[in-house]
């Protein structure tokens, strides 16, 4: 494909089609609406506007079980509504992609402004233990690439994969050259209507519900978790920029905010996860080389908390709240935490 000027959300729509998505279902919400608005014009794709986000993800689950690659897209309020069925899709092992273009919350918050407040919700929003794969690109080109990654990871893991974005990168226009020669992973499981399988959200062994068998439950959860880790290893994307000057500080950021982190590349080493979850060993290995770790994010320390848990050490928080990304403010805040 030739060069195109695309909005982030349009890049997601285009990439979904390239990845082989044949079904989309959603409910309008700022700042994700451009995805459904764009997709309705792609004739190969069945697009439904549902009555809410609960039915959006429910139809996507149904369509996926029926054999189609399927996706939904939303923002925080809708993502909250989807949580119960996200757990269902993990339990029933249904591949699908959920795009969450984050805006400022909680509640209706600041609908047009970017935030990164749904990080923990991605992994703990539904009840019970489950182990989602989550990607978070930081440019229009990456939204394109990693929409395809997300579909591949979903097929590989047979699980709902989350593609995070935010109001900033989803509404950003950049020139990209969309590639179409990616490896595309296709469905192996036969579609509904071809067997006598029972898909259930109850704890189960194959098609059999097992509602009071602890051993079976433990086996099931272990298998589901391992499957996610094995898939994640194959899509272990991150960006690590070692500072060319002497530094003992690693600055971690992601999504929209990581774009401003590049301004500090001569002062700190930079780490940017693209695979947000599960957090794999590379971050641990890299972090060992630094005395100080700063996590800059558009929330009050959600990813920082996860990193502390994984590294068993304290990190410095740098919250950037309310949708305002100001270089001046961040410079000041950084010099504040560095001299501390």
């Amino acid at each position, binding site marked *: 494909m030739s060069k195109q000027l695309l909005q982030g959300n349009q890049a997601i729509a285009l990439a979904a089609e390239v990845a082989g998505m044949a079904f989309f279902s959603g409910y309008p919400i700022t700042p994700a609406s451009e995805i459904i608005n764009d997709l309705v014009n792609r004739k190969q794709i*069945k697009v439904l506007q549902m*009555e809410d986000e609960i039915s959006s993800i429910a*139809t996507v689950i149904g369509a996926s079980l029926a054999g189609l690659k399927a996706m939904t897209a939303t923002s925080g309020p809708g993502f909250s509504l989807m949580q119960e069925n996200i757990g269902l899709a993990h339990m029933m092992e249904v591949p699908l992609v959920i795009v969450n273009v984050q805006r400022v919350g909680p509640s209706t918050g600041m609908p047009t402004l970017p935030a990164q407040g749904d990080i923990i919700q991605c992994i703990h929003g539904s009840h019970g233990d489950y182990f989602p794969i989550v990607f978070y690109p930081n440019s229009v080109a990456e939204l394109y690439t990693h929409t395809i990654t997300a579909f591949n990871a979903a097929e590989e893991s047979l699980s709902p994969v989350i593609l995070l974005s935010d109001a900033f990168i989803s509404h950003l226009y950049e020139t990209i050259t969309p590639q179409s020669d990616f490896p595309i992973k296709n469905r192996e499981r036969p579609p509904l209507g071809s067997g*006598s*399988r029972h898909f259930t959200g109850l704890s189960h062994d194959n098609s059999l519900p097992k509602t009071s068998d602890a051993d079976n439950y433990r086996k099931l959860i272990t298998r589901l978790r391992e499957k996610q880790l094995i898939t994640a290893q194959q899509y272990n994307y991150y960006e690590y920029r070692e500072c060319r000057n002497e530094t003992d500080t690693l600055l971690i950021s992601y999504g929209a905010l990581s774009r401003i982190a590049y301004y500090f590349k001569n002062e700190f080493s930079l780490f940017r996860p693209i695979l947000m979850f599960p957090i794999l060993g590379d971050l641990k290995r890299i972090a060992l080389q630094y005395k100080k770790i700063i996590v800059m994010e558009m929330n009050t320390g959600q990813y920082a908390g996860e990193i502390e848990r994984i590294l068993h050490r304290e990190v410095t928080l740098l919250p950037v709240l309310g949708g305002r990304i100001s270089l001046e403010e961040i410079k000041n805040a950084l010099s504040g935490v560095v001299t501390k």
Partner: protein
Amino acid sequence: MGNNVTKDVQFKRYLKLELLPTPWCPGCGNGIVLKTICQAFYEINFPLQGTVVISGIGCAGRSAGFFNLDSVHTTHGRAVPVAEGIKYANEKLNVVVVSGDGDLMGIGGNHLLHAIRRNTNITVICFANEIYGMTGGQVSPITPKGVKTLTTPEGNPDNPIDIQHLFVGNKSFFARTSAYHLSHMKKCIIAALQFNGFSFVEARTMCIVNYGRRLGYKNSNAMLNHYKETYKINDNAEELAPNEIGILKGNFQADEQLYQ
């Protein structure tokens, strides 16, 4: 007669007999509805491959796992949109939802409203026992006014929903039937399955343990007797009175001979 005996055995191919018994209480009406659905499948020769059953959560919802075909047991109230996703993804599939009245009309009520509007070509069979059976007997959207349940100890203060009104003036199919009127139930289900559009069968059935017993019914036969005495069949009705069962007018669309 001989023919009937064969039929009686044949419908069983739609069930995973090895999984029986069901988890339902003795005297529960769910088994009657499950069996009648299978008989309807058999009579119109629904293919095992190519038919999918979807359910929500509740006692009735557990029936999905007993069908000898691909089935999906979803979350509480979401069977209809999951089924719609399946149907829109593959129009060739026969898509049938089986679930309770609380699941379909309570927590899932909004989806039902919109599935009727979209007239999605699926069939919903509601095991309408007027109560939340699985959770112990709380009031449901169709519990009659004045009836005492765990959560309406003074009697239900509200009027029940009469779901047929959502269908009036719509292109979709509605029928009400009861577990006493077995051939009528089968006829309604067959008509619904053959209907080209959204079809809903409200099958009144007994929850003896968490409902009937508390209302003073000795056993589920007494509840069946109540259906027998209460319900008059009025097929092709403009509107069904509370004491009527039947198929709403305009809904006879398929091969009428089959279900006369």
